[in-house]
């Protein structure tokens, strides 16, 4: 096999292969969307325990949880899904991991206070602890 032929064959395998991967991924996405019973879950709800498990990386874990808050709220918002029950536990974990994460208080408070379906419609009267008060104080 000449060099040109082998190179052409390699390019063809790579291009056709990647095109096939692209097509298959679309098909798999459709299949997963049709079969997955989507369930939101937050397994670890104890911020204190997560803080202990994060060792010295609690601020990094807080950042990851904050990203998860944004993605959770954003996904619900895009899908017009009013059930955002996990918003408060997620924010609680985030602010426990890093109490100085002001952005979580600021935007978390907005997400929490907005009336459904835009927000959780969280009652201010239910403010039970300092972090919740911190979030709500910024409203």
């Amino acid at each position, binding site marked *: 096999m000449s060099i040109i032929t082998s190179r052409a064959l*390699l390019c063809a*395998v*790579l291009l056709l*292969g*990647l095109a*096939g*991967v*692209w097509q*298959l*991924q*679309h*098909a*798999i996405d459709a*299949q*997963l969307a049709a*079969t*997955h*019973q989507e*369930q939101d879950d937050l397994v670890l709800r104890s911020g204190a325990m997560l803080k202990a498990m994060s060792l010295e990386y609690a601020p990094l874990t807080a950042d990851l949880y904050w990203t998860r808050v944004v*993605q959770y709220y*954003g*996904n619900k918002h895009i899908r017009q899904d009013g059930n955002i029950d996990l918003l408060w536990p997620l924010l609680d974990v985030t602010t426990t991991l890093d109490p100085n994460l002001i952005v979580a208080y600021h935007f978390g408070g907005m997400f929490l206070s907005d009336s459904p379906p835009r927000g959780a419609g969280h009652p201010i009267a239910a403010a039970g602890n300092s972090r919740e008060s911190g979030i709500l104080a910024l409203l």
Partner: protein
Amino acid sequence: MRRAGIVALNTFREAVRDRVLYNLVFFALTMIAASILVGQVSIGIEEMVIVTLGLSAISVIGLLIAVFIGVGLVSREMDKRTLYALLATPVRRWEFLLGKFGGLVLTLTVNTAAMAVGLFLALKLVKQSGQHVEGPVLVAVYFILLKLGLVVALALLFSCFTTPLLSILYTAGLYIAGLFVTDMRNFQSDTMSRALQTLLRWLSYLLPNFQNFDVMAAAAHGRAIPGLLIAQNTAYAVLYCTVVFAAAAAIFTKRNLK
């Protein structure tokens, strides 16, 4: 193909001699301890805990073997100078790579199958409900094996042109990125330029999507996994491995081994 088969068989033998399969003892002990402990500390979710713990252990142990042995497949042969003697025979370079890939996949298959047997035994020990989780668990184990095959292919690709340490970093990096491709695709922000959004979207389809193989939650809850998804994931893994292997073979064929 026969020559690649011989290389594969020898790679498998080498892995066995390196006591790679000793981790099975560790896995068996973990599963026995977990099944005893879980029965005493959890109420109603014993099976679920065993399934998630078992599948996680299979996945983590498999990934460690795939990455750490995968990146050394080529470099070890070069360090020991056995590669030069081998390539002096009629074995082509791509056949050598294919044999190495096949050998490690065979090792992982034996390893995963043995661990799956351990998982099913532990499951039998704690089984209380009438729910049939065996089928979905078997599919989940198969998906883990597909994922491991893909990881081996990536490790092999990187080991063809860089050092083992960098190969580990690249493979681990791609694996972690592959766990977040859906997030990458759905990530929308007003502050992000349109070009960056398009780039992320393209990347999310071209990077290996390891989320496809994650059916652990479905298996733990005994939810059936459709046959079409099994076929699609198999095709995806085979196709992706072919692309990665073609790239690896092209690089290794051109590599100056002096």
